[in-house]
């Protein structure tokens, strides 16, 4: 196994760090020792104390260096995580990611429900000019919309409304925080209301002043 020569020797601390980084489940101290000894070609395993010492040194060094990773010793294993201080940034990122993965029809349907709620499918279809059955099912599945009850009109159609999850995903305290309802009503009442404008509107309104007027998907560079 010992087929590699290194410019500078790889230390136990480096192995610990790399394993804590690359694995997606906690890695046991024993496992770190085993892998280290196996590759370096030592017959005796490093002590657990040595690993724990390396762990502390690493965390100290992250802190001193202003780095945002820490190695946690959880559930009998080591795992690298980010510090609490950057959590809001990661939350914001993943929220944006999830939103970006909402397709146009989903985004559009969601926007209409958000402003018209509670809304029937017929109302939504009328605004979009297309059937929203699939989009509604998908949004229910994603727990961004919920059935609010039934309208007291002929056929007693179901009423859709946004969920707490919706607020959370879009970083809103409550529905009052939805941007510029008057503008929204104008838009929604407009016959020329179209996808592009919804997107523009959602991007401007809901993305909380990132000052970028482009549609939320403009940064997706993937060709797939």
């Amino acid at each position, binding site marked *: 196994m010992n087929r590699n020569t290194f410019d500078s020797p790889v230390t136990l601390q480096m192995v610990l760090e*790399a394993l804590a*980084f*690359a*694995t*997606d*489940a906690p890695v046991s101290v024993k496992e770190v020792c085993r892998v280290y000894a196996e590759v370096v070609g030592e017959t005796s395993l490093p002590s657990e104390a040595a690993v724990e010492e390396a762990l502390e040194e690493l965390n100290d060094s992250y802190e001193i260096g202003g780095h945002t990773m820490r190695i946690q010793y959880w559930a009998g294993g080591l795992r*690298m995580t980010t510090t609490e201080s950057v959590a809001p940034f990661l939350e914001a990122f993943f929220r944006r990611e999830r939103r970006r993965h909402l397709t146009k029809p989903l985004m559009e349907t969601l926007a209409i429900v958000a402003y018209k709620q509670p809304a029937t499918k017929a109302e939504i279809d009328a605004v979009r000019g297309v059937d929203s059955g699939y989009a509604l099912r998908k949004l229910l599945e994603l727990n961004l919309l919920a059935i609010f009850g039934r309208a007291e009109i002929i056929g007693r159609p179901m009423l859709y409304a946004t969920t707490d999850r919706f607020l959370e995903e879009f970083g809103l305290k409550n529905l009052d925080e939805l941007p510029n309802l008057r503008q929204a009503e104008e838009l929604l009442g407009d016959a020329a209301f179209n996808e592009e404008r919804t997107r523009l509107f959602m991007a401007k309104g809901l993305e909380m002043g990132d000052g970028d007027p482009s549609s939320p998907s403009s940064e997706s560079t993937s060709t797939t």
Partner: protein
Amino acid sequence: MYRVQLQDFEGPLDLLLLLINRNEIDIFDIPIAQITNEYLSYVELIETIDLDGVAEFIYFAALLISIKARMLLPSPEMDEEGEPIDPRQEIVDRLLEYVQYKDAAETLDEQFKQRSLLFTRGEASTPIQSMVPEHEILVKRTVFDLIDTLRDVLEKAPEEPSITIAPQKHSITEQCEYIRDAVFTQGQVNFGSMVMGKTRYFIVVTFLAVLEMAYSGEVFVSSAPAGDDFVIARAEGQSFAE
């Protein structure tokens, strides 16, 4: 079990490059008659053993023959500026372009390997494995070297009344079993000794079975010390239970 396509190993341009390289020929002055003859001898053998994917080899054979014919014309063709056109130009251009991309493919392959030394987070759960099952073709020589051996062996084989050989699938399966047994018990065997004194049919079907097993990564094929034979060895870490 499926039939091996010749082009899974090498294509017609690879064969041409091999012939040019082996004969130390200047690519800008290809002795077209000689190369055509050598090329045709391979194509004939490939046709005889009914190896899939021969159509493209035949296309290039036709191209070579037409170049050879044009070389013999008394007055050469002229281009727009009245310069004589070398009929070989087309094939030379194609070979040069192919060499460039073959080289690029190897460079990219190296880059791919280098990149795979860098691990990302959550490595175990990334779909990287889906890249791997593309099995390695375990031939340490070109398939044409193997065909050379086959040619030698066939020449020594007893003549049979029937020349046309159309190996059935089930026979290839049987021959795979035959090789598997031998390789499993002896670790490695020489192709020559596996088919010594057998009929041409047996030799050809065994040959195709070897290609198939090399293609599926079950055996490793490399040159024999003697040079005129090849060694079939058990691929490392490969279970024969299947």
